[in-house]
């Protein structure tokens, strides 16, 4: 029941990482999922992704200093 993606200039683009991308991310930053910032699974910005606990969401933000920057959040439930 994927909902429609919200399109607005001030909502940065959220995408779900595949399992492979996830592992690459963990390797790159020497991370465990616990050390990632979190996002609620019912967050409106990721409603269209159908993300579940344990998934990782990539957020492409516009940045004043770097043009575009990547941010990653792990999906949690409550």
């Amino acid at each position, binding site marked *: 029941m994927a909902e429609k993606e919200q399109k607005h200039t001030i909502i940065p683009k959220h995408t779900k990482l595949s399992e492979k991308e996830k592992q690459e991310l963990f390797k790159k930053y020497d991370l465990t999922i616990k*050390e990632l910032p979190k996002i609620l699974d019912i967050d409106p910005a990721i409603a269209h992704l159908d993300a579940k606990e344990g998934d990782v969401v990539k957020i492409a*933000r516009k940045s004043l*200093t*770097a043009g575009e920057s*990547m941010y990653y959040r792990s999906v949690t439930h409550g």
Partner: protein
Amino acid sequence: MEEYVYKKVSSIVFGLLSPKVVKKMSAVKVVTPELYDKEGYPVDGGLMDTRMGVIDPGLRCKTCGSKIKECVGHFGYIELARPVININLVSLISTLLKFTCRECGKILIPKVKADKIIESLAAADKEVGLEKRRKIVKHVITSLKTTNKCPHCKARQLKITIEKPTTFLENEKRITPIEIRARLEKISDEDCELFGLNPKYARPEWAVQTILPIPPVTIRPSITLESGERSEDDLTHKLGDIVRINQRLFENINAGAPEIIIEDLWDLLQYHVTTFYNNEVAQLPPARHRSGQPLKTLAERIKSKEGRIRYNLAGKRTNFSARTVISPDPMIGLNEVGIPLIMAMKLTVPERVTAWNINYLKAFVQKGSDKYPGANYVIRPDGKKKKITEEMKEQILEEIQPGYIIERHLMDGDISVFNRQPSLHRMSMMCHKIKVLPGRTLRLNPSVCHPYNADFDGDEMNLHIPQTEEARAEAEILMEVPTQLISPAFGLSIMGCIQDSISGNFLLARDPEIKKEIAVKLLVDSGITDFSRLPSKKTISGRDVFSMLLPDDFNFSAHSKLCKKGPEAECKDANHIVIKDGKLLQGTLDSANLGKGAGLLLRNLHQKYGQEFAVDFLAKVAKLGVNYLFHKGFTVGISDMDLPDDANQKIENALEESTITIRELISACADRTLEAFPGKTIEETLELKIIETLNNVRNKTGNIVAEYSTKLTPTVIMARSGARGSVLTLGQMTACIGQQVLRGKRIDKGYKGRTLSAFRAGDLTESARGFVKYGYKRGTTPAEYFFAAMTGRDSLMDTALRTPKSGYLYRRLSNAMQDIKVDYDGTVRDASNKIIQFSYGEDGVDVSRSVGGKIDVKRIIQNLK
């Protein structure tokens, strides 16, 4: 020698003390409130029993056999005649009583549900850890509801309420601590887990105390007053009360006294135990000394700003430090601090005697402590400290050999750490080299005022003298002034020329010819000794004098304050700064390039020639500016505010015009012919239009002043160069101060319908509502003076009230972020390694290594060529 046991802490458990543990860790059972016998020795079984440690020199602890300071102290205990509730655990007891069955002691939720929660707790332990467990427990407790019937034994439940602070009621009837304890005992270990208790370390019934641990005497030492009397610590007083009441309670129970008397004593015992823990419980009157001042018991010792944590642990006092008023000295270096001779003779540096420096150090001892530079103390290799006095001097001199340490007076070049509160950023504490000067104040170069946010209207600053080689090395490498030149906030020099140094250089750069002798004198006074690059002409231009400070391979170009902004390379303005091969070819030197926190000149010099050079350059430029002003003379006078007659006439006309406009507006409003702005009443429109007119006239007069101030008077020089003041303040002095604004409106407070009794009620003209017509030079009318005082007081109040508020805001912010750091992989993480940012500032740039927060790749490539 003392022995230390080194162990790594792997985990900490918080729990409640069980009566068993209290007994086990105790050395004494306290039975009597007496403290000392007739001879003044501590009574056995009393509160000062020597088995709990010793505080008198000469006595030995009966438990461990060590002397004062060696023995850390041992706990004792009292057996309470009746149990009492621990005030710190009232809320725990309350939840336990409310949500367990009064008959069977089981938690008031069905077994199936309880089992499920236990399962989820076990899962949380395995997967996430304690944090998740706490979250579940919190959720369980908040979601519990009072039920009327126990789901296990079907017993009817009664309503439990607390009567603050420590009385529990069941259906309005009191339950005694004995009963409470009995109920808590019935709670099973499994149910404890549901309440977040680990029954191994915190059985519920331990929250009701049957036994009270007595802290060692070493944490409540008595002091001997001058009169020989002993004065006991507050805690000892409180414990004395507890023991005394406890004894009376015992006696009354044994004698079979009536229930009322026993209950009264019991309540009293509860009160004393409660105030022993915390003497600031809301519903209780605090226990007091005979003098009426409240006792400081356990909680007050730890809590708040004056408590152990913020006062003693986070805020330690330090030796080898000094504090006085500061004053400026532009002739000392930026990384120097001038200290008074008296301070230099009190503050010392320890130097170890070796075979090579023994004679050098003996010379200090020879001088003694009254002559500078001398020495105050000698420390022998066994650690004994000896004061150097006139009588002892010869003996000490003979005794000294390698291995001794001599605490000699401070001398020029010693390392110090200089600080001004509030220490908001790292530049608030910098390392300076000592320079001993006459006088009674600490001296600093005005160019380092900005990082400290210091001025000389009575500011005081602190000085610390590092006492070990490591500390000195660290201070020198990490916090010397040159290392702090580039601000980590914006990537430009935080230090710069101020005030006279700016005006001086501004004038210097536009001086076409200076006699060679004078030029040389200026340069020598500013610390330049190499004159090989000085043009061999009779007269030298100011720019050439300035160029002497620049390295001969330095190229630079930048906008000055007066340049029209635009692409930097295409600027054709004569004020635009161009430096080629170390020669200042054209341009105006002003605050945009020399000033603090601005300009790329210092930043580029820093990048190319290093921090030492940049600071040295800044010091020389500042000195040169000041010296040039010495040579020229520079005084502000009333005549600076003079305007030609036609300018005055123009200003007068502008003011007159606005008066007429306002009068017309007011009458238009009175006949309701004024057209209202959408959404506004006519009165509001009038007000807006008047404000607009008055703003216009102020700007108009300001422009007239700017137009006519073509002559470079000292005041204009300061405004132009950016040293002090602006065109606006110039206008306020010469032409018109303008409208006084209070709470975003023209002044309308005071009397009914008018501001002062000098005006008619309802007078809306500019002069009746706080418009100050003329400048400071011409002066103000009494009414205008009063209006100016109103806004002046308002802004004074505002700053006085805002400073502590924003200070507290900053304190909370910095405390919340103190563990956040940039990791080696460029990520920003907190203490538990959680990621805050994936790249510092999203671009991974270390601002203090950038130029104005950016990395100019083009410039780097250009420099590589």
